[in-house]
């Protein structure tokens, strides 16, 4: 018959079911099935600085890691708490300026200044964002988009923190290997840390806040408290990234509030696959080098990644990681209806 209809059926692979529970340890194959992707990722990232040619691309790896941290913080807020923040630059700027000021005026060594900036910046960002937390969806997105623009204009208009010149003479990392492996360690730490976190009870509550905040309220938990906590974690990670970038470039200025820092992590998350936490990191490892390759074409790279972003949002919204995970765990076949 010609009007015979087919549909695609997806079934879990046998090995996935076997390795779901304690039976995972019964053979090397199951163990490898579980650990191989993770091991590949960790080994790949750790070896990357040794494999890339030259100092320039090593610097690119550091920048990739900065964006990866930001993308992680975006993914946590957007897909686990339901707060879509378009203001990654806000976190970068806050963390960057704090770290730069600690370093230049108080003489705090970079590695210490970065951690202080992350904590302090996290607190400041959370306090500043606190009034907007009850907002939802579009409204929160617009308000967070405005924050970095606003701060940049205020710094420009009031001529504080070095005004348009920025803060010069920020100390760099002791050497470039420390710089490389510090940011890489931070990415891996937060990647796996956040994966743990979202599977704990706290992660459950956060997802509940996203899906049904009335239910969270009815259970006697404070929505604002948990949102605040999530924003603190996310903005702390963002500020850490900002502090790192200040010490990498040895300079802090208004360009820290640039739109790049808000858009690229979102693009990476969309491409990599939202809600997976690994996806955004992979997205950064694809997007940032591509935009580095296009650097000589000037702003064409922004055109490029906005088109990629738009295409993914409109046509392939699941992202690479969700697609890959499906292929890895399941097989597909056509069945007659």
């Amino acid at each position: 018959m010609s009007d015979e209809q087919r549909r695609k059926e997806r079934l879990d692979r046998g090995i996935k079911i076997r390795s779901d529970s304690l039976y995972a340890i019964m053979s090397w194959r199951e163990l490898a099935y579980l650990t191989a992707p993770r091991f590949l990722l960790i080994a790949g990232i750790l070896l990357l600085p040794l494999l890339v040619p030259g100092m320039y691309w090593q610097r690119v790896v550091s920048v990739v890691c900065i964006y990866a941290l930001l993308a992680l913080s975006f993914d946590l807020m957007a897909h686990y708490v339901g707060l879509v923040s378009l203001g990654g630059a806000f976190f970068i700027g806050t963390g960057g300026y704090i770290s730069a000021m600690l370093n230049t005026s108080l003489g705090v060594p970079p590695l210490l200044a970065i951690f202080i900036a992350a904590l302090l910046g996290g607190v400041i960002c959370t306090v500043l964002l606190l009034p907007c937390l009850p907002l939802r969806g579009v409204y929160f997105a617009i308000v967070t988009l405005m924050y970095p623009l606003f701060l940049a204009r205020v710094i420009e208009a009031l001529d504080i923190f070095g005004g348009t010149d920025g803060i010069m003479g920020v100390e760099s990392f002791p050497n470039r290997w420390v710089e490389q492996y510090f940011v890489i360690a931070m990415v891996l730490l937060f990647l796996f840390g956040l994966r743990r976190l979202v599977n704990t009870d706290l992660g459950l509550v956060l997802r509940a806040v996203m899906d049904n905040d009335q239910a969270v309220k009815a259970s006697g938990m404070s929505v604002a408290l948990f949102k605040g906590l999530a924003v603190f974690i996310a903005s702390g990670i963002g500020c850490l990234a900002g502090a790192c970038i200040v010490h990498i470039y040895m300079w802090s200025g208004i360009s820290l509030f640039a739109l790049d820092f808000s858009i690229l992590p979102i693009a990476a998350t969309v491409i990599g696959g939202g809600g997976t936490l690994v996806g955004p990191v992979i997205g950064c490892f694809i997007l940032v080098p591509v935009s580095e390759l296009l650097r000589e074409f000037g702003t064409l790279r922004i055109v490029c990644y906005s088109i990629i972003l738009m295409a993914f949002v409109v046509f392939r919204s699941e992202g690479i990681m969700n697609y890959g995970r499906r292929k890895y765990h399941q097989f597909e076949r056509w069945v007659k209806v």
Partner: protein
Amino acid sequence: MDILIYGTINSVSLALMALGFALVYGISRVANFAHGALYVVTGFLTWSLFKGAGLNYALSIALAMLFTGLIGALIYQFFLIRVRGMAISEIIASYAIGLAILEGFRWGGFKGMTYTLPPFVEGSMVLAGTPVDYHRLLVVLIGFGVVAFLWAFTHYSRIGLALRGMAQDERAALMLGIDSDLMAVVAMAFGSMLAGLSAVVLLPLGNIVVEKGYDVLIQAIAVCIVGGLGSWFGAVVAAFIIGFAQIVTVVWWGAHFQMVVALLAIIFTLVLRPSGLFGRQKELEERV
């Protein structure tokens, strides 16, 4: 007196910038973040038709506006319609489109001080002790004309009534035979043409630069949010509030603060009263 005159001019300019954004959001609930890009597109199109191809000024303006409307309709028909209803995807997608257009222009060499349009009417006059050029007065007139036209259009023409019906209750509109997808495309084309109109009216006052696209977007958002998203009347009132606030701060503190006022207005309105002065959304929908 300075403040009164220039405040009015500034407010009308803001209203012109924001009306297109408010129209699209009010009807199809799409926050069109490519608004600023469409503004700049019209500017450059008019310039290329007028200076590049040597057409008549009025003709090139009309063609550029039509073309911008077409671009808006195409953007909606081919991209935004697929993510309709997913607010965040809409914002990201339209913002990406806008970014691509603006940065594409920058890459294509449209930058610097060379791109200017001549004012409609040369010359200036002294109004109550303040020098004002004719073009700025014309801006005010056109602004009022556009608001009046929009009001008449949405109250008396079939398409306008259909658009208003869709904005109020999409299901009921569908039941009465109004094709909501088609109307959304029409609204988007209309909004883009309004962006284009504001561009050709306001751009002769300065240079055509890519950065304008971002500024226009922010100011349009500021006006629409303060007035309440989706409310046209609110947008006009808010344009006057923000317009005068900007001029007052510029006179007292300096030109740097013009944008700060717009941004502050957005943040404060969203924090204190997200539905704006005249918004019709229910409080519960937008905040917990």
